[in-house]
């Protein structure tokens, strides 16, 4: 089963050194963060991302201004220097993804934030971080596209791009929050997963979520679970930058630590040197894929809401899932048995949970702010269950899908 409580850490994962101990502040960062007031405050999604990044130990941000993500950069420009971290405004989004990847190779926990046009520019760099297995996080606060689109309006148009945007085969880890609190939690999780899986993790936000304010009480730092990359313990001449092991999660040295390794965007062997040998190329590609599929239970998180007796299921993510949740309550009042299945991890796609949902219900409703990106995945899995009816609700005019919209369409389809 892939159901997981979203507020608890995944049970299988091991705690790390920096985890749950209410230790004495050792560094300037710890001191600052432990003295920060943890009372309930009104906070934007973008603010929550910035504070989530800081609490996850991010100490490097490179970015370029773009609506509707700019607040993340603005907050980190003020906060990172206080903690001795680096904030740099680069000349464009391409430079931003490159700078965070370089910083990460030097040992930083690095993050950037952008929106559609910048996310498109970053795709080559995202592919580089993936093939070189360099931890970093890209936050994409989605706005209406294509191109410049509607910069201040909401859309969910990068669900497929976040999976397939960079050329070549490269599996993705993409997280998708639906509330301001979850923006904070999933930013920490994104940083943690990037460190653990040595890859570029993408956090998708909806424009409305980035700018919406909600009352949030951030947890005490002692309760924030932070994962950092595993460091090699072998002598330098034994070090393999891409070491083999069962779960494909191998130690990572940083520049300046005596390991003197090579990193290239070319297809490479385990040491990191370029190769044209078919067997080594196949090994590398396999490693990138298996790193995700062998750890799918650790990666996939879904929320299952009122699904126990549901005959109708709504499958939605992000801000649209918020509307769907309200629609579930409205429908239940009318005696319609509806539930909601919401992926917090959108890639890798929660295939098993969706297959179970398709087995259990008669109708699946898929509302989304695009022309059918999420529903493609449902259709991919529905092929052996032709008796499940699929109701699509799609909108790309900058307006949200309301609970009433979902309820009406659902009733029409019954």
């Amino acid at each position, binding site marked *: 089963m892939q159901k997981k409580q979203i507020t608890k850490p995944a049970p299988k994962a091991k705690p790390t050194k920096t985890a749950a101990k209410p230790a004495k502040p050792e560094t*300037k960062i710890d001191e*600052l963060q432990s003295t920060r007031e943890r009372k309930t405050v009104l906070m934007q999604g973008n603010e929550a991302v910035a504070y989530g990044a800081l609490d996850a130990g991010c*100490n*490097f941000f*490179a970015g370029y201004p773009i609506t509707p993500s700019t607040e993340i950069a603005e907050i980190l420009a*003020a906060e990172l*220097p*206080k903690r*001795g971290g*680096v904030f*740099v405004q*680069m*000349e*464009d989004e*391409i*430079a*931003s993804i*490159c*700078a*965070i*990847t*370089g*910083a*990460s*190779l*030097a*040992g*930083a926990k*690095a993050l950037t934030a952008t929106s559609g046009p910048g996310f498109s520019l970053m795709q*080559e*760099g995202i592919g*580089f971080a993936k093939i070189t297995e360099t931890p970093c996080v890209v936050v994409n606060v989605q706005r209406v596209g294509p191109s410049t689109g509607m910069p201040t309006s909401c859309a969910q148009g990068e669900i497929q791009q976040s999976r397939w945007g960079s050329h070549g085969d490269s599996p993705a880890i993409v997280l998708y929050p639906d509330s301001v609190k979850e923006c904070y939690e999933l930013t920490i999780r994104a940083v943690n997963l990037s460190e653990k899986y040595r890859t570029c993790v993408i956090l998708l936000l909806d424009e409305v979520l980035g700018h919406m304010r909600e009352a949030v009480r951030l947890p005490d730092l002692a309760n924030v679970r932070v994962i950092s990359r595993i460091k090699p313990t072998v002598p330098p001449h034994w070090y393999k930058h891409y070491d083999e092991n069962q779960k494909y999660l191998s130690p990572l040295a940083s*520049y*300046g*630590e*005596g*390991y*003197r*390794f*090579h*990193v*290239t*965007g*070319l297809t490479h062997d385990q*040491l990191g*040197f*370029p190769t044209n040998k078919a067997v080594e190329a196949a090994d590398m590609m396999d490693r990138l894929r298996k790193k995700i599929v062998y750890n799918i239970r650790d990666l996939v998180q879904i929320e299952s809401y009122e699904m126990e007796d549901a005959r109708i299921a709504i499958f939605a993510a992000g801000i649209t899932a918020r509307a769907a949740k309200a629609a579930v309550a409205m429908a239940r009042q009318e005696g319609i048995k509806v539930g909601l299945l919401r992926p917090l991890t959108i890639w890798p796609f929660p295939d098993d949970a969706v297959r179970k949902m398709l087995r259990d219900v008669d109708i699946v409703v898929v509302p989304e702010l695009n022309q059918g990106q999420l529903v493609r995945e449902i259709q991919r899995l529905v092929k052996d269950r032709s008796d499940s009816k699929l109701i699509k609700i799609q909108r790309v005019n900058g307006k949200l899908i309301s609970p009433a919209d979902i309820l009406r369409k659902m009733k029409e389809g019954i």
Partner: protein
Amino acid sequence: MANVPQKIIHEYLRHDKKFPHVWCAGCSNGIVLGTIIRALASMDIDRDDIVMVSGIGCSSRMPVYVDFNTLHTLHGRSIAYATGIKLHKPHLKVIVVTGDGDCTAIGGNHLIHAARRNIDLTVILVNNNIYGMTGGQCSPTTPHEAIATTAPYGNIEPDFNICELALGAGASYVARTTAYHTQETQNIVKEAIEHPGFALIEVVSACPVIYGRLNKKGGAPEMMKEMRDNSIPLAAAEKLPPEKVEGKIIRGVLRKDLRPEYTAQYADLVKRVQAMGGDK
């Protein structure tokens, strides 16, 4: 090159890893790499603290052969990756090896902004006037009327003066040399690495197999002779009337200024902010 015995160079190469190298016979890249290694060997730097970063192209293949921390990045982006490394670990010596297409076409934006910031990177730009790796296409430094596979009737575009570009963008150290003048190149590379700020060295080089063949320049020796005969030191050029300097490669250090370096300024900012107790 006489002051560092040849054996030293071998100590800096990854002999057992990726040789033979990819460069054609007569290519200047090996000569330039030799001068970089000799310069570094003559300095007292722990090689664990040296990072060599490159983009895409013939010269950008250098890092794989040397025993430093090495990073072979995307086309044009080496300076952006290097900026991230340097900002996170300012004590590292970050050397960028790049080419004319990599650094002034696709990567031109990163070059000018790194120069403007005056971040302490040493950019060694091997200028062979052509895209060699992809087989001889026109680059921003392919001379006017020269032949390239994408300019079969002659290049109608004017070419970049790379050093002028770097000077205009605010680089605090700018020098030009050639692959023929190895001792001079070695000295300049050493000085540039020691320079606290953004340094750009244009090394005029020979690509006999592609550029030379397309433009009937003869073989590698002829192209080396051209570098010798068609270049003049800056000090001599300053004494000559402009018509005698026209078309010549002017070698030497064109600028060596001390102005605030970016990572040092960032460290100062952090100190200032922390002294304020984190209040703006």
